[in-house]
C-alpha cells in the first residue's frame, strides 16, 4: 500500500512545487512577515518588548492564515477528484481507500506545514528582539501544527462527504467557527445565569471550558503570556491530534459509501421547476428580461425569488433573535416587557452591514468562478457587449440578490434612526469614512479577480490580502503621516482608487477574455 500512497503524494507535491501559485503564496507570506517585522521594529524603536509584540502578532497572523488556507485547501482533497471525474479511475487502479486518503491529504498537509516552516526563521528573530523565549516559540509552532493536522483531517472528512468543494469548505468553516467560537459564546451566555449545580449546567459549562482551552486561539494566548512554563505538548496538542485521527477514521469509514456514485457533471439547477402549480410558478425564472445577464445569474446561479424568500426568513430570524438577546441581556430577564429598540437597532445595523459586505463578496466570487468553472465565458463574451459591460452586469446581479439584506438593514435603521444619520454623516464627511468605503470596494474587486485566477478559496485569499493591506500598508502609511490621520486616509484612498481602476479597466476584463479564449 505504501507505493501507491507515495506515488499519489509525490505527484501532488511535484505539481505543488512547480505551481507559481504556491510559490507566490509563500512569497506573499514572507513579505507579509517582513513588513510585520518592519512595522513592529519601527513602533518599538525607542524600547519595549518588541520581540514578544512581534511574535504575538506573527503567530496570530499565521494561525488566521493557515486556518483560512486550510478551510479552502483541505476541503478540496477528495472533491477535486470527484469534480474532475478522476476518483473512479483512482479506485479502479486498485489503490486502497487508506492509500487514496493518505496520498491526497499528506501532500496538502506538507504544503501547509511548509508555509509555517517559512516563518520559523523570522520567529527566531523575536528572541533577539527580546521578550520571548525559545520555549514559547517552539510551543507555538507545535500548537499550530496540531491545529493544522486537525483541520486537514476535518477538511478531508467533509471532502469525502460532499460532492462539491464549495459545500465541503462551507462545512469545514462551520466546524472551525463552531469549535473555536461557539464554546466562548456559550460560556458568556452561561455567565448571565447564576451559577447552578444542575448537571446540565455543569456539563455544558465544563464542555465549553474544555473546548475553549483546546482551541489553538486560546492556546496561543496561554503560551504567549508572561512566565509561560507549561509543557510544550499541551492538552490542545493532544486533543487536536485526537480529533484529526477521529476524522481520518470517519473519512475512511464513509469513503466507499460517499464515493460510490460519480458526481453529476455540470451545475445543479438551484431554481425550482414550477410548471404545474400556477401559484409557485411566480417563483420560477419566467421570461428573460432586457438585462439578460442579470436575469440569468439571479435565477440560475443564485436561485431566483425562491432563494431570496429563504434568505428573507433567515434575516428575519436574525432580527428577532438579536432583539430578544439585546432585551434579555439588558434586563437580565426574558419576561421584561421593555424591548430595547435602540440597542437592537445598533446591533442589527452592524450585523447586517458586515453580512452585506461578505454576502456581496461571496456572491461575486460565486458568480465569476462558476462562469470559469463551467467554461461559459466564451458564450458571454461572444455577445455584442464588451467584457467590462458583462462584468458590471454580473456585479449588478450580486447587488440584486442582496436586496433582502439591504431591506432588513434599512428596517433596522428605523429602530435608531438618529444614530444611523449620525454615523452616515461621519462616514460621508470624514476622509476615513471614504477610505473605508473604497477599502470595501477594493475587497469586492479583488475577490472577483481572485475568483477568476484561483481554483478555490478566492474569498478567503481576498480576505487575507485585505487584512494584510489593512494592518500593514495602512499601518506604515499611518506611521508616515503620524500626525495627520486625514492625510493618511486621503493617501490610502488614492491607492485604493488606483487599484480599483486597474482591476476594473484592465485586470478583470483581460482575465475574462483569457478564460473565454482558453475555453473556446
Amino acid at each position, binding site marked *: 500500500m505504501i507505493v501507491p500512497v507515495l506515488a499519489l503524494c509525490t505527484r501532488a507535491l511535484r505539481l505543488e512545487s512547480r505551481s507559481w501559485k504556491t510559490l507566490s503564496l509563500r512569497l506573499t507570506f514572507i513579505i507579509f512577515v517582513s513588513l510585520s517585522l518592519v512595522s513592529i521594529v519601527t513602533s518599538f524603536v525607542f524600547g519595549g518588548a518588541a520581540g514578544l509584540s512581534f511574535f504575538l502578532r506573527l503567530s496570530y497572523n499565521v494561525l488566521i492564515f493557515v486556518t483560512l488556507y486550510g478551510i479552502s485547501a483541505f476541503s478540496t482533497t477528495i472533491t477535486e477528484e470527484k469534480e474532475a471525474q478522476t476518483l473512479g479511475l483512482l479506485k479502479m487502479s486498485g489503490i486502497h481507500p487508506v492509500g487514496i486518503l493518505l496520498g491526497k491529504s499528506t501532500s496538502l498537509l506538507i504544503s501547509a506545514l511548509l508555509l509555517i516552516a517559512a516563518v520559523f526563521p523570522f520567529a527566531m528573530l523575536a528572541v533577539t528582539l527580546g521578550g520571548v523565549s525559545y520555549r514559547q516559540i517552539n510551543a507555538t509552532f507545535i500548537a499550530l501544527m496540531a491545529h493544522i493536522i486537525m483541520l486537514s483531517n476535518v477538511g478531508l472528512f467533509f471532502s469525502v462527504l460532499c460532492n462539491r468543494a464549495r459545500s465541503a469548505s462551507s462545512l469545514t468553516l462551520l466546524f472551525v467557527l463552531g469549535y473555536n467560537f461557539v464554546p466562548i459564546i456559550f460560556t458568556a451566555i452561561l455567565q448571565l445565569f447564576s451559577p447552578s449545580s444542575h448537571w446540565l449546567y455543569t456539563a455544558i459549562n465544563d464542555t465549553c471550558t474544555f473546548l475553549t482551552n483546546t482551541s489553538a486561539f486560546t492556546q496561543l494566548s496561554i503560551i504567549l503570556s508572561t512566565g509561560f512554563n507549561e509543557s510544550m505538548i499541551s492538552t490542545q496538542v493532544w486533543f487536536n491530534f485526537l480529533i484529526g485521527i477521529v476524522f481520518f477514521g470517519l473519512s475512511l469509514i464513509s469513503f466507499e459509501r460517499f464515493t460510490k456514485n460519480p458526481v453529476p457533471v455540470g451545475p445543479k439547477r438551484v431554481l425550482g421547476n414550477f410548471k404545474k402549480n400556477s401559484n409557485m410558478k411566480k417563483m420560477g425564472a419566467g421570461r428573460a428580461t432586457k438585462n439578460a445577464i442579470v436575469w*440569468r445569474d439571479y435565477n440560475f446561479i443564485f436561485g431566483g425569488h425562491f432563494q431570496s424568500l429563504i434568505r428573507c426568513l433567515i434575516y428575519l430570524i436574525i432580527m428577532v433573535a438579536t432583539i430578544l438577546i439585546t432585551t434579555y441581556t439588558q434586563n437580565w430577564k426574558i419576561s421584561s416587557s421593555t424591548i430595547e429598540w435602540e440597542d437592537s437597532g445598533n446591533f442589527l445595523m452592524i450585523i447586517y452591514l458586515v453580512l452585506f459586505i461578505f454576502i456581496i463578496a461571496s456572491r461575486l466570487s460565486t458568480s465569476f468562478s462558476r462562469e470559469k468553472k463551467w467554461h461559459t465565458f466564451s*458564450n458571454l463574451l461572444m455577445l455584442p457587449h464588451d467584457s467590462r459591460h458583462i462584468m458590471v452586469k454580473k456585479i449588478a446581479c450580486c447587488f440584486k440578490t442582496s436586496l433582502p439584506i439591504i431591506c432588513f438593514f434599512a428596517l433596522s435603521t428605523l429602530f435608531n434612526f438618529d444614530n444611523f444619520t449620525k454615523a452616515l454623516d461621519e462616514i460621508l464627511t470624514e476622509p476615513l469614512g471614504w477610505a473605508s468605503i473604497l477599502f470595501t470596494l477594493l475587497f469586492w474587486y479583488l475577490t472577483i479577480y481572485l475568483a477568476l485566477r484561483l481554483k478555490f478559496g478566492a474569498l478567503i485569499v481576498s480576505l487575507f490580502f485585505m487584512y494584510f493591506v489593512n494592518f500593514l500598508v495602512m499601518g506604515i502609511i499611518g506611521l508616515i503621516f503620524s500626525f495627520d490621520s486625514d492625510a493618511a486616509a486621503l493617501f490610502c484612498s488614492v491607492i485604493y482608487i488606483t487599484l480599483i481602476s486597474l482591476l476594473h479597466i484592465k485586470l478583470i476584463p483581460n482575465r475574462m477574455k483569457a478564460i473565454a479564449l482558453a475555453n473556446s
Partner: protein
Amino acid sequence: MTEHESIIDVNNLRYSYKNSKALLGSTFIVRRGELHGFVGPNGAGKTTILKLLSTLLPPQIGDLRVFGLDVKTNAKAIRRRMGFMPDHFSMYQQMTVFEYLDFFAAAYGLGASERDSTIKDVLTLTDMDGRQNDLIQGLSRGMQQRVSLARVLVHDPELLLLDEPASGLDPRARIELMDILKELKNMGKTVFISSHILAELADLCDSVTIIDQGQIKYTGDIDGLLQTQSTTTEKNYALKLSEANDSLFERLQNMEGMLQVSRGDKEGEYKFTFDSNQISINQIVGTISQQNTAILSIREDVKHLNQAFMELTTAGVRQ
C-alpha cells in the same frame, strides 16, 4: 450587396502565441452564401483563425475583414451579425432549452414576442420541436449540439462560424447535422465550418481552404482541389476481365510506360498504374483484346479527397 461579395477577407494574417507561431501569413476569402470548409490536421491553426474571425482574439499582423469591417475596430458590430459555435460544449446545463435560447435572444436585444417566434423557428429548423422544456444537462451530445446551433441562430446572423461541429457525434447525428447545414445554406446564410476530415465536407461545401502548420495549402472549390492534385501523368485504372492467364499478366507488365499491375480485391479485377505520356488506356485495352479476353468493366480510380489532403499536409503529431 452582391452574391459574390466576400464576407470573410483574410489577407496575409500572422499570429504568434508566446512560444509558437500559429499563422504564417494566411490569405483566403469566403463569399456570401457559400458553405466554406476549413480543413486542417490537429494543431494546424484552424481554431486560431476561428477565434480571430469571431473577434475573441485581436489580430496581430495582417488584414482581417468580416462583412468588409476591420475586426480590430468593429468587433461589436461584427458580433451582432455573426454566430460562433466553439468546439467545446459550454452551455448553461441547469437551464431548459427554452430558457437557454430565451436568454441569448434577450441578450441580443430581441423583444419578448419576437423571441417567441424566433425560438420556435430555430427549434423547428434544428428538429428540436417538443424538447423546449427539457433540461440541457439531460440531453444527449447530439441534442446539445443542436441546441448550441439553435443558440447561434437566435439573432438571425448572416455568418455562422462552426468549429468542428460534428466532433463526437455518432454517424446518424453527423448526417442530420449536415442536413441542417445544407438547409441553412439554402436560407442564404454563409457558413464557415472547420473540420479535420476533408471527406466529411466534400459533399457539403462549395469551397474549401486547407491549412497546415499555419500556412494555407489550398483555397478554392472542391473540383479545383482534385484537379490541382491531378497534375501528374500517372493514371490508375481497375479492369474486370473474364479470364486472365500468366502470359497476359506478363505481357501487360512488360508494356512500356506500365508502372504497376496487380490483382484487385474482387475476383477477376486487375489494377493498372501507368504513365499516360507513354501509353494510353486504349493501348492496354487493345493488348487485352488481342489475347481474346473479354473486358467486363473498366473504371478510372480518381485520386480520393483524403489522398489529396494527405499530400497537401505534412505527417506527424502537432502541438
